[in-house]
């Protein structure tokens, strides 16, 4: 019906519009799908064939990763020491608990049921059953949780050397538990409650931490763990049954409450996803983190302000410490990451401890460098302070550097060795220091990295034009971890790694690249001017 067809009532006023045959939810979805696919310029097959090198590369890397897992599984399964047995028993539990916790945290952050702004405007106002629109979405998210949980549970069980049946049990159990967590969060979303989801996520996070600490305790022979393989299978099966029951119950509840979810709540998660996906497609991982941090700050909203201390750079350092005291979650991540070197040693893989330890510390340190991120992502705030960029960087990383140093000190016993080769104390201390430095400097490099410049010159590729910083951005931070710990992996003395770490620190924290670049440009300009003057003469 066009506007011309709208019947006019008496006195020339328009009569109310009456829809004789309103569209169904399915028809609306098909129409949107038609719009979307109708505007695509290339099919998925064409896109894949254009990027065949990348597809080939992914397959190759995937095969290598699978091979490494199979090899590691073979090696670890031979280990029968108390430490190995404890890790084999406890690490899947830790994975299970942490997967549940992570699923709940992410579900609370995103919804878990969400809708895009366009859907909110066009569909949610339509006279259709909202439940019908949202049901496939809820099922999809739950299925994704099931798949990711299965992968994580199965992978950890395989890497700890568990037999095949246990791998399957842990995979299915963890997957079902993750799916049940998502449906539980969806049920709570429908009831407009946040606290139960938050409390359960904290509880499972705590359980995961306890399980990880137990791995260390057993490896250090502080606790003796009586392992019974048959009971482990029985417990695993019971876990699957429990998770399945929770999944069914919470799914029924969540589906029944789908109609009650407010539009603003649905759109809030959608806006977050669209922001994150935009940043993801630009491969700007820093921006993804910024979006999440901003969302968290908006949730908090108001804080009890506290006065600063001192003048000059001191208040900047003080604010970093204060920020950490105000939101100590990053410290929890660092504390959790402490477990990794011990767990790796317990599994008899002491030789790869530095790279594993540094990578995990790198991930845990990033949330601690929010201040550095803000001061380096745009120049505005740094320009408002009467210090050079390098001084600002050093002041903002002072507190995280101390935390990294404490982390390194705490991992020295792992490097001294519980299960694998023992290192003498000086060597173990140096190795721990190098690992801590690698993780810390990796996080600093990741945080201070500039996003890819899509406005500058690009490099031609099978995928089209790619900005030069795009690929480097993907490995930023990881490269430092590998560079610094590589000598240890190759069996070289830790002093070599320490020297590399010192050079990296010098480059990242002491040299002011922007100022040096400006100086070089200025010199080039002067040289050009002199040449022109000579040519004129």
């Amino acid at each position, binding site marked *: 019906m066009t506007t011309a067809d709208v019947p006019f009532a008496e006195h020339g006023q328009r009569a109310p519009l009456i829809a004789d045959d309103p569209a169904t939810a399915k028809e609306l979805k098909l129409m949107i799908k038609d719009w979307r696919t109708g505007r695509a310029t290339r099919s998925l097959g064409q896109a894949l064939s254009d990027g065949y090198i990348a597809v080939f590369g992914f397959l190759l890397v995937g095969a290598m990763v699978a091979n490494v897992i199979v090899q590691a599984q073979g090696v670890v399964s031979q280990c029968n020491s108390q430490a190995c047995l404890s890790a084999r028993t406890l690490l899947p539990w830790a994975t299970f608990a942490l997967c549940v916790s992570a699923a709940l945290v992410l579900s609370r952050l995103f919804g878990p049921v969400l809708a895009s702004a366009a859907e909110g405007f066009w569909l949610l106002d339509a006279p259709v059953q909202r439940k019908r629109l949202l049901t496939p979405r809820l099922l999809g998210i739950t299925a994704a949780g099931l798949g990711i949980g299965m992968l994580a549970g199965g992978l950890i069980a395989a890497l700890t050397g568990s037999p095949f049946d246990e791998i399957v049990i842990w995979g299915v159990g963890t997957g079902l538990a993750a799916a049940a967590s998502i449906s539980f969060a969806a049920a709570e979303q429908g009831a407009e409650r946040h606290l139960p989801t938050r409390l359960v996520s904290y509880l499972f996070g705590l359980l995961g931490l306890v399980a990880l600490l137990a791995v260390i305790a057993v490896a250090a022979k502080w606790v003796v763990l009586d392992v019974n393989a048959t009971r482990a299978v029985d417990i695993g099966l019971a876990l699957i049954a429990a998770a399945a029951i929770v999944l069914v119950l919470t799914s029924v509840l969540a589906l029944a409450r789908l109609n009650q979810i407010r539009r603003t709540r649905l759109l809030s998660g959608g806006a977050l996803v669209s922001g994150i996906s935009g940043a993801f497609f630009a491969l700007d991982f820093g921006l993804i983190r910024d979006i999440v941090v901003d969302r968290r700050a908006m949730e908090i909203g108001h804080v009890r*302000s506290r006065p600063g201390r001192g003048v000059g750079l001191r208040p900047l350092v003080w604010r970093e410490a204060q920020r950490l005291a105000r939101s100590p979650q990053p410290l929890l991540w660092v504390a959790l990451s402490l477990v990794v070197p011990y767990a790796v040693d317990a599994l008899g893989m002491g030789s790869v401890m530095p790279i594993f330890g540094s990578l995990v510390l790198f991930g845990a340190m990033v949330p601690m460098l929010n201040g550095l991120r803000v001061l380096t992502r745009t120049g505005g705030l740094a320009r*408002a302070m009467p*210090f*050079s960029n390098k001084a600002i960087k050093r002041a903002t990383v002072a507190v995280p550097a101390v935390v990294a140093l404490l982390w390194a000190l705490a991992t020295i016993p792992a490097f001294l060795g519980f299960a694998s080769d023992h290192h003498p104390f000086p060597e173990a201390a140096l190795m721990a220091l190098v690992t801590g430095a690698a993780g810390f400097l990796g996080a600093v490099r990741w945080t201070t990295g500039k996003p890819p410049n899509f406005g500058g010159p690009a490099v031609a590729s099978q995928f089209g034009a790619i900005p030069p910083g795009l690929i480097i951005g993907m490995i930023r931070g990881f490269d430092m971890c590998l560079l610094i710990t590589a000598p240890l992996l190759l069996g070289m003395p830790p002093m070599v790694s320490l020297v590399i770490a010192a050079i990296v620190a010098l480059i990242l924290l002491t040299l002011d690249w922007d100022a040096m670049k400006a100086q070089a440009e200025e010199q080039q300009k002067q040289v050009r001017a002199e040449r022109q003057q000579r040519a004129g003469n």
Partner: protein
Amino acid sequence: MLYMAKRGSVVLKVSGLRRAFGPVTILDKFNLEVREGEAVALTGRNGAGKSTLLRCLVGADKPDDGTIEIDGTKLTESAVEIRRDMATVIDDLDFFPDLSVVEHLDLLARAHGLSDPEPVVDEILHEVQLIPQSGQLPGTLSSGQRRRLALATAFVRPRKLLILDEPEQRLDTEGIFWLARRLREERENGLAIVFASHEPSLVNSVATRILHLGAARDGEMVGPTPDQSLAEPSLTPETVVPGEPSAAVPGQSAQKTAQKQKQPAKKPRPSQGRKPKSTPKSAANQRRNR
């Protein structure tokens, strides 16, 4: 009354500035001198090069040619002396997501050497009407409140040169009155100001000179020759544009209105529980302007 520029020392000196984007030259052979107590307003249509010029002046953008000196020091964005003397509010100001409004101002004041920043911070918070929001995180502020916070960051610290890009943006009428009064006061206290604005009342009441930058006209968008500048020749320091507050300018009564800006009946204290120290306003002003 004709505003006469004080013949103080030169704070900002721009010589032969050139900035081009591809074939379009935005600024060419641009010269400018701003002395203490002078306020230069940049006006012109969108795309005329006002923001580009200001970005070059603060070091956020690199000119293709020419030099910029702040108080005799050649401009580099990270030079400590320049960061100490130049307060800027352009579109790239960022905030810590987890520090409150008052903590931002406290941090900046302390970074600039104010050991007891509380009176200055309280005063500026009161001026920008952010006292009720003093404990809020920046992400929860409205766009207008964020703008006020950005302006407050420039006034909470010592400065010799103030550079503002469309400071009236997102401010309400009362906010623009306050800003005009504050900038006039700053200028009279000897501060050098360069600002771009589309608000005639602000320009007329604050500026001692107005530089009108020309934009590309219809049909000229493609290909000005490399030597062709879209900027009109800059005015010499002697060219003083009358800036007498007129009917369109906040006059005396407007000032009184602005002074009577409504605050909550029970004013929440930004110091969050600490006793404010009664420092005379004049002392605070002295400290602020060093």
